[in-house]
């Protein structure tokens, strides 16, 4: 990982193992995520890339049988340490899910909910500013500014997903984790999300899990290839796709399996 030393590491994982009961889902994964680059996790189904993503904001805590070993740090702070508040961690490390999951509330409420529970806005005026800024960053403002009181679930799939991204941005996170954010969307909506990821790069550390190798190539600067719970290869996206060091990576990106 010598090539990552030039940039500041936002999150680092060292020797992470994840177990579901007796079954080991992640085996000794070490990885660094930085602010300047979008990191993509690729790999065949069931390789553990989503599981690993969910360890980064401790969403695996909600699975009773899940157990995490190793060390994951955010700005050098161990997120699995007993002093770490998981609620605050998840505000700092936001998440966008595979299926768009807006709350069955108004568009405004969807975005305002996070800032409200974290006390980020003083009064309605400030909240309005946060909502507008978040929706603008999510590239949704122009489409919904006249109907903020309509239900978030009435939007199209792509709009819903951008609303979810806006909702994540609204709490001012440092890292945004995206778990296959485009797998339920059509190509046009996907293109918009990819454009959005491009715009958000640099402001937030972004980690995206994707099935789609072309997408990984398009949106990310660094790519990690997972296979059977292990991190096979991690490096600059251009290197991974044009000059993979590992035989398994080469087989996967050339479509031999997956």
């Amino acid at each position, binding site marked *: 990982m010598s090539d990552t030393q030039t940039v500041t590491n936002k999150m680092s994982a060292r020797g992470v193992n994840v177990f579901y009961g007796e079954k080991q889902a992640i085996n000794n994964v070490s990885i660094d995520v930085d602010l300047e680059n979008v990191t993509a996790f690729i790999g065949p189904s069931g390789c553990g890339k989503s599981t690993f993503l969910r360890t980064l904001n401790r969403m695996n805590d909600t699975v*009773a049988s899940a157990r995490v070993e190793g060390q994951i740090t955010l700005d050098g702070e161990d997120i699995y340490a007993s002093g770490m508040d998981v*609620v605050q961690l998840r*505000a700092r490390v936001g998440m966008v899910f595979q299926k768009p*999951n807006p709350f*069955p509330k108004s568009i405004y409420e969807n975005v305002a909910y996070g800032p409200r529970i974290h006390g980020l806005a003083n009064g309605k005026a400030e909240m309005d500013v946060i909502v507008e800024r978040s929706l603008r960053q999510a590239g949704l403002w122009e489409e919904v500014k006249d109907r903020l009181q309509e239900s978030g679930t009435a939007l199209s799939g792509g709009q819903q997903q951008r609303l979810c991204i806006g909702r994540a941005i609204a*709490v001012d996170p440092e890292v945004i984790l995206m778990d296959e954010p485009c797998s339920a969307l059509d190509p046009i909506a996907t293109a918009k999300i990819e454009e959005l990821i491009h715009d958000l790069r640099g402001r937030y550390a972004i980690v995206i899990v994707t099935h789609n190798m072309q997408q990984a190539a398009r949106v990310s600067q660094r790519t990690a290839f997972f296979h059977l719970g292990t991190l096979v290869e991690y490096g600059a996206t251009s290197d991974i796709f044009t000059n993979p060091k590992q035989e398994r990576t080469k087989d996967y990106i050339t479509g031999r399996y997956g």
Partner: protein
Amino acid sequence: MSAAALPLDAIPAEPSRAPTDWKGDVMRKRIARRYAAERRFRLLGLGAVALSAGFLAFLLISMMSSGLRGFTRTEIALPIDFAQSPILIDPAALKAGNPELVLANANLPAVIDDAAKKAFGVNGTEMLSPGAVIAVRKAIIADPSILSGKATIRVPASEGVDVAAKGNGAPANEASIATLQKTNALSTAFNWQFLTASDGTDPTQVGIWGALKGSLLTMGVTLLLSFPIGVFAALYLEEYAPRNRWTDLIEVSINNLAAVPSIIFGLLGLAIFLNMWNLPRSAALVGGMTLALMTMPVIVIAGRNAIKAVPPSIRDAALGIGASPIQVVFHHVLPLALPGILTGTIIGMARALGETAPLLMIGMRAFIASPPGGVTDPATVLPVQIFLWSDEVGRGFIEKTSAAIIVLLLFLLTMNGLAIYLRNKFEKRW
């Protein structure tokens, strides 16, 4: 990836077989059988629906035909000549003091007795309900000037005359009817007393209000106890409790509790609330507590199902932006589960409303002639009142029983309507 490892030619070729004849006889017969099965199934379903609708119609029609009569009463126009009557009441005294008290001390029954005998013969007094005194008293208070002259006052008829006038009487009463009809004294009026009075010994004087109020108070206690306990138990079990042998045991126990016969809960109430805690007997408080024991498991089960039905993606979404578990529950899960919880609650409450057996055990079958003033006053409830009246020998009680059933059914209908309204109001789509 294992499929990719296998070259395509390694898949064994299918053995050769004749092309399927989609138009052949065998196929056509199969299709015909399929259609026949579908028709049979539809007929069967239609028959089942028709049969249940028939039963329902029979119940409603028989209930209405005998019950609606319970809401009316036969009245007799009784001419009273106060000037000639054995006692005199000073209208001035009525204005000065408490008129009810003054009239209660005056010997009104003797006046009525005298008037009835003059108007309808020696049996005249028996034709009037004991409630006739109240009707006369009310008439005097409404217009004291009638005391100085003659007046015709409509008083309720006796049980026998009432039943006979409604076409269901004994031969002796038919004669009274004939006498009364000669003077055109009979009339029918809506029986307001049935809606405002409580239990009594004479069917012409009984009312449903006492039992209705008792039911309302009991339901109130039941709701206040079982709803919060049931909802919090459901939330805890679904959202917080670790999955282990203890929670399994609790789950099985709650499911079993919902199936325990209600009389057992009555005995429990008797043993604990009355004998151990010495709470008042026959009171809505104890009745409500006993029914709450019965309703709570229903709410827990319905609540858990409703909470389970909230999509996990909503929980993930809230957790993902840093909502604490309690915020997830109260901001997202509970509002989305509320329609289901409310429906379950009202179904449980409707069952409790119709429950009789456990209330008999804690003494709510006592004869209570005045409506309860609070949850600790002796009270009875609608189903128990129905049970008590159906046990009475007087013929007049038959229609009162049916009328009480109509009131109970209307109450239930209102509750179920409320359940549907609330469900539609709070239901959200996602």
